[in-house]
């Protein structure tokens, strides 16, 4: 007997089909029912237009798409023997805005998704405060928009640089938003200074927390999420940034990686047509996103958590809480070190004469985002997008389960639905 569940309040729409056995999930498949066809919309257009079109793949992580496009074009230049060398200023501004988008995502996920779904699971009567998430996110996007002009849907990154040429006024303004955001996170979420929070060494120290995260952590333990929602214990990070270490991990063993080994395979969705494809690395499924990134950089408290609770739903949620704090600190140091006297843009060779292929890889909020392009005389011949949710929430046949399928197995339906959300589902990206 299969039960169908509509998943709401994610990015877009998804349906899960549960095969139950003895009251727990024996097997689950996932369908993403909506088709949008952006890859075919891109075909034949000038490659520069992709800078405007791909951010519109996704309302919550469009900036990551913009960066993936820019990196893919710059990679194509490199492959054509016209390497684009970026200066520190360009790299730092781009990274700052990308990080701000991740931060807004995490704020929303914590307050609009995870806390309410956990409350639903534990039948808690606590008053929900989703607008705290919106407020935190809006501060992050203000800081982002100072450089990018707007969020969502900016196109300020271009091959060879960025369109913006900030003065110290913009830098100071962005710094003040980041400071405000840090205070807000400390006061509302942590009840502890950011510095102290980042220096916690063991999960046993979480009782020093006082804010919303304390309640979240308690509720996770109460629902035994530290013993549930285990996936393959394999992690993948592909995007190269100052806050990541591209690598794959099997448990705690670290291996080097190359995005060229990523492939997408057909989804197994027997009950409903799904427009998603599953992403694999060398024929294996890996979990991607904050837990993977924090494991790859060897962040002490996350490693401690992993030692105790492996890749449980608990670790997945808490890693994201820590990544948010880690990225807030990182964004501060990025702003401090931007040299405004460097050029914002370095002229590239004529793009209308560019004939080459390229691959852009970025760590988006949910993990590696890959754009692959073939360009002929500046026109798009082929555009292929692989998104993080395709790694985490594919739908496959036994025995080779995707991370989300594996994590839901053996749980009650209610628990499984919560665990599903710990991956931070982006349906719109998945069915690009």
């Amino acid at each position: 007997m299969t039960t169908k569940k509509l998943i709401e309040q994610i990015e877009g729409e998804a349906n899960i089909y549960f095969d139950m056995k003895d009251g727990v999930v024996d097997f689950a498949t996932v369908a993403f029912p909506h088709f949008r066809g952006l890859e075919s919309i891109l075909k034949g257009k000038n490659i520069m237009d992709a800078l405007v079109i791909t951010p519109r793949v996704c309302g919550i992580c469009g900036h990551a798409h913009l960066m993936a496009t820019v990196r893919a074009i710059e990679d194509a230049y490199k492959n054509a023997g016209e390497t684009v060398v970026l200066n520190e200023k360009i790299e730092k501004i781009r990274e700052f805005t990308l990080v701000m988008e991740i931060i807004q995502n995490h704020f929303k996920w914590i307050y609009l998704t995870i806390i309410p779904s956990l409350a639903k699971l534990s039948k808690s009567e606590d008053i929900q405060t989703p607008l705290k998430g919106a407020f935190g996110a809006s501060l992050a996007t203000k800081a982002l928009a100072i450089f990018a002009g707007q969020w969502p849907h900016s196109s300020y990154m271009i091959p060879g640089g960025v369109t913006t040429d900030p003065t110290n006024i913009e830098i100071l303004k962005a710094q003040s938003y980041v400071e405000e955001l840090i205070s807000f996170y400390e006061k509302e979420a942590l009840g502890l200074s950011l510095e102290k929070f980042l220096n916690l060494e063991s999960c046993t120290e979480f009782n020093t927390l006082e804010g919303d995260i304390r309640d979240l952590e308690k509720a996770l333990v109460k629902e035994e999420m530290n013993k549930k929602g285990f996936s393959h214990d394999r992690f993948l990070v592909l995007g190269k940034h100052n806050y990541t270490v591209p690598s794959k991990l099997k448990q705690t063993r670290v291996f080097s990686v190359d995005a060229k080994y990523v492939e997408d395979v057909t989804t197994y969705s027997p009950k409903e047509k799904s427009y998603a494809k599953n992403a694999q690395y060398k024929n294996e499924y890996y979990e991607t996103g904050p837990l993977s990134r924090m494991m790859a950089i060897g962040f002490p408290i996350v490693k401690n958590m992993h030692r105790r609770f492996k890749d449980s739903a608990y670790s997945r949620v808490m890693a994201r809480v820590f990544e948010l704090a880690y990225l807030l600190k990182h964004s501060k140091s990025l702003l401090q070190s931007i040299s405004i006297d460097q050029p914002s843009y370095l002229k590239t060779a004529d793009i209308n004469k560019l004939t080459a292929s390229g691959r852009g890889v970025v760590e988006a909020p949910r993990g590696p985002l890959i754009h692959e392009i073939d360009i002929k005389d500046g026109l798009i011949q082929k555009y292929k997008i692989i998104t993080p949710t395709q790694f985490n929430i594919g739908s496959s046949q036994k025995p080779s389960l995707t991370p989300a399928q594996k994590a839901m197995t053996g749980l009650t339906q209610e628990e499984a639905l919560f665990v599903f959300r710990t991956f931070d589902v982006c349906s719109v990206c998945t069915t690009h």
Partner: protein
Amino acid sequence: MHSKQDKRPTLLWIQGVTCNGNTHSFLNLPNIDQLLVKFRLLHHPSLAGEYSFEDMAACRFKCDILIFEGAYDPLMKRGGVLLSKIVEHYAQTAGHIIGVGSCASFGGMFKASAPERNSGLIFNEEIEYGPLLKYKSKVINIAGCPAHPEWISYTLSMIAAGKKVQVDELHRPIELFSNLAHHGCIRNEYFEWKVDAVAFGKKEGCLFYEYGCRAPMTHASCNKILWNEVSSKTRVGTPCFGCTEPDFPRQNLFSTKKNMSIPVDVPIGVPKRSYLTLTGIAKAFHIQRLEGKLIDYKKTD
């Protein structure tokens, strides 16, 4: 959550073919709490409402204000129910229907997913067409990709206060769309004196002649009501792509279409002859202040 005495207008937000960009744009609204208390939120894609997604798809209730995000695809299903059925059900009795974003207004980006059938609610690009034509007088289009949160807030607040929202021929609120994106651009002086930008990434120069800026041809108040309260595309040196107009997305967005070096499109309402006369004259002058760098950091030690 609400009592029978709750007289606030009810609000429903549903989606067609979309990227969720308008939903996320809306969440950026400063003081969103002050706006939301004016309404009973029945259902929203990311904020908790009184009814679930399944209730919404099953058409189990009615609303005073219907917000629609995304392109309309008559064959699309939401929660297993045809979107055409859902939209008709709620539109029939709603007092106001708001299309948020250019997809809902004109088809926009996701018209291209299925160009032969996707459209906006009452327009397919600038042609009157769409599922809600018979309710056209109730429809307000907040065009933009995405719609600006304060534009959405303005429209909802006017409705909540019982005030009439005057609209243009494309059903966009006149108070928001009588401006051009060009108004308030901090590069206006470069446009006036025809000092063209020579590259991206510079504070100086106008993006109209070389880099495809559509601001003088685009109805929008982006440079009056700033994005995220801080900036706009042209303020950070990105050309305006004309995302509030029915022809968005156009092609070759980063370059200006020219015939024999003459821009094909000139500012709205300005005869080409007048534009060219003025341009020829303005270009004759060389104004040092505008041709030099605004700030030279290398010089200031």
